[in-house]
């Protein structure tokens, strides 16, 4: 996929727009100059023609074109002035000598109205003409009764515009050359400015690319000259890096804990067997030591199982099989399985409700793990001769399960960390039974997969309550028998 380039876009579009603006400006300027010069030309032509036109006179009741005689006697004017006139009634025409055998096109406007137009002169040059209809002027006393209005004359004055147009062509050429040069300079300037503006982005990019694996999460240094438009993106990138680093740190911590939880029992097995073989022992002693190693192995097996389950749940690869379940029955079953532990710990299980049927849709196995973990946890951390209270509530949308017990060695500050993997309350490993440290994390992941919620609350009397809410409709994507999608 071809990516758009900021540099190319800026250079191209700024250049094009600047070029367009400049060409438009130059055209306006050129046409302004041209119009002004032609107006000036027309004005001069009009003034000169006006002086000649008064020389169309009526003498003794007859129209005379006196200008012809005046031109004839003036060498300069004779060779340069291009004038032609017509008597509108008779069609008789009068020409200046410079026209020679050629003739000007006859045209005119209304009486005394001047019209200006371009034309090709008889000698082939480009020219401009002024045409008008005039009335002759009465000259002397012998014109009594002569009505000039009945003798209109068409008068055309033409002049070559070749020198003016050549000058204009020069102006146009110079303007085009200047515009091209200026546009080139503008383009170079834009390229330099854009390149310089984008340089910090390249530096930032190089800084990102040069990151080594052990510095991936360190924030990017934001150079002081980084454009303000990019600073926001860079700062957001740093926030993202911080979040990624936080996640990596949690993953590292998790790996450390996993490593610790697996290597420590392995050490237990190795040292138990080493001690077993360190000297000759009685058969009974051997048996006890091998049994001890097997117990550790069993614990290790359970830990690996829990870690695998936790990993599948967190990575969204756990296959779930939702079904309609009597949640009360499932909890009672878990209590029955833990009966011996409950008795050993001198505890009592007390249901707050009598109702025996609470229905919900969930995966039976996952829910069994969830309840076993929560109840097992309560058994391990409750002081003897206390009760564990169980409560179920439901409405049309959801079923809520609460489990409350007296908490020892737990403070409010611990609540937020309870669901973190391997968070343990202060106390010896194993002193509270077979707790891997990921039971509540597993519960949290199970609830996430089932689309419910889990909360922990510690009250003033140091009673901790875990509340699990399961919705009666599974979240989308959790179809029966399918791997859950992320």
């Amino acid at each position, binding site marked *: 996929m071809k990516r758009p380039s900021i540099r190319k876009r800026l250079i191209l579009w700024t250049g094009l727009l600047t070029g367009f603006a400049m060409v438009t400006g130059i055209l306006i300027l050129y046409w302004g100059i041209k119009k002004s010069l032609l107006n000036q030309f027309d004005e001069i032509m009009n003034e000169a023609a006006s002086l000649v036109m008064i020389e169309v006179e009526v003498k003794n009741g007859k129209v005379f074109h006196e200008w012809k005689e005046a031109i004839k006697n003036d060498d300069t004017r004779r060779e340069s002035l291009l004038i032609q006139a017509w008597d509108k009634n008779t069609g008789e025409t009068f020409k200046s000598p410079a026209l020679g055998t050629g003739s000007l096109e006859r045209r005119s406007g209304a009486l005394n109205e001047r019209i200006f137009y371009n034309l090709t002169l008889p000698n082939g040059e480009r020219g401009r003409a002024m045409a008008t209809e005039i009335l002759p002027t009465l000259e002397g006393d012998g014109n009594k009764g002569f009505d000039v209005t009945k003798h209109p004359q068409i008068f055309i004055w033409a002049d070559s515009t070749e020198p003016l147009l050549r000058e204009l062509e020069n102006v146009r050429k110079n303007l085009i050359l200047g515009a091209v040069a200026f546009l080139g300079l503008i383009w170079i300037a834009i390229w330099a400015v854009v390149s310089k503006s984008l340089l910090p982005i390249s530096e930032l990019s190089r800084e990102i690319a040069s990151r080594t694996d052990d510095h991936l999460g360190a924030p990017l240094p934001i150079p002081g000259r980084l454009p303000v438009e990019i600073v926001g993106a860079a700062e957001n990138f740093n926030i993202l890096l911080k979040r990624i680093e936080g996640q990596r740190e949690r993953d590292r911590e998790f790996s450390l804990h996993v490593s610790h939880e697996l290597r420590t029992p392995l050490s237990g097995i190795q040292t138990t067997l080493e001690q077993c073989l*360190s000297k000759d022992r009685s058969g009974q002693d051997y048996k006890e030591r091998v049994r001890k190693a097997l117990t550790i192995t069993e614990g290790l097996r359970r830990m690996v199982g829990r870690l695998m389950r936790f990993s599948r749940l967190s990575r969204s690869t756990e296959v779930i099989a939702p079904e309609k379940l009597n949640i009360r029955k499932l909890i009672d079953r878990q209590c029955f399985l833990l009966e011996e532990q409950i008795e050993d710990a001198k505890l009592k299980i007390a249901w707050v409700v009598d109702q025996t049927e609470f229905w919900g849709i969930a995966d039976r196995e996952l829910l069994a793990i969830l309840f076993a973990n929560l109840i097992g946890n309560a058994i391990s951390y409750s002081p003897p001769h206390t009760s564990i209270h169980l409560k179920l509530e439901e409405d049309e949308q959801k079923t809520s399960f609460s489990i409350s017990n007296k908490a020892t060695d737990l403070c409010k500050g611990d609540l937020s960390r309870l669901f973190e993997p391997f968070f343990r309350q*202060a106390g*010896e*490993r194993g002193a509270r039974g077979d707790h891997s440290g990921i039971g509540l994390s597993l519960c949290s992941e199970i609830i996430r997969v089932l689309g419910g919620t889990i909360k922990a609350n510690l009250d003033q009397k140091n009673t901790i309550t875990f509340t699990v809410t399961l919705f009666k409709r599974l979240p989308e994507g959790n179809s029966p028998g399918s791997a859950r999608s992320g």
Partner: protein
Amino acid sequence: MRVLVVEDYQPLRENITECLLEQNFVVDTTATGDEGLWLATNQLYDVILLDIMLPNLDGLTLLKRLRASGSNVPAILISARDSVEQRIEGLETGADDYLVKPFALEEMLARVKAQIRRRYQKKSPLLNLDDLTIDTQKQLVARSGEEIPLTRKEYKILEYLAYRKGEVVTRPDIWEHVYDDQEGGLSNTLDVYIGYLRRKLNTGNRPNLIKTIRGRGYTLDPEIE
């Protein structure tokens, strides 16, 4: 020699302790960091075996606080953290050695003994004093090449005195390094054992190596008459 084992995993703690006891070490154990720190600052140890991930107070913090209090007791970290960075972190915190789980007890023992030798500036596991030779590896004592059978307690006392050859070692000092807290005993128990030792070591009119420094304690030094 007295060793403190701070490890929260019961089977491992028990095995280490048993192994050390079989090697005539006096061993104190605890499963929590805070208790470990208390013991380490209130008792004289020759080596501390210290897990890192401990309840209440982690091993590295324990070690930092111990070093901050001025203690230079050799500490061997035992941990599942095996990366170079983690080992460096442990050693830079003040540990003298680093043992990665799972480990062989033999290796652990060798490292503990090496730390003790370093502590008492001995390069070899053989301690020689005049014609007396103590093989700390095999726990054998010989004089002029002739092996002398000793009880565990006698060996412990002799080994400790040999490590501190030439120094005057007080009775409480010997008591702390050689006796279990639970053993109890009368105030003259040590004198009785010293008497036994002298008798066994001085057979055949050999010169007496264990001298009594009146009002202070004992010293193992052939130069003093």
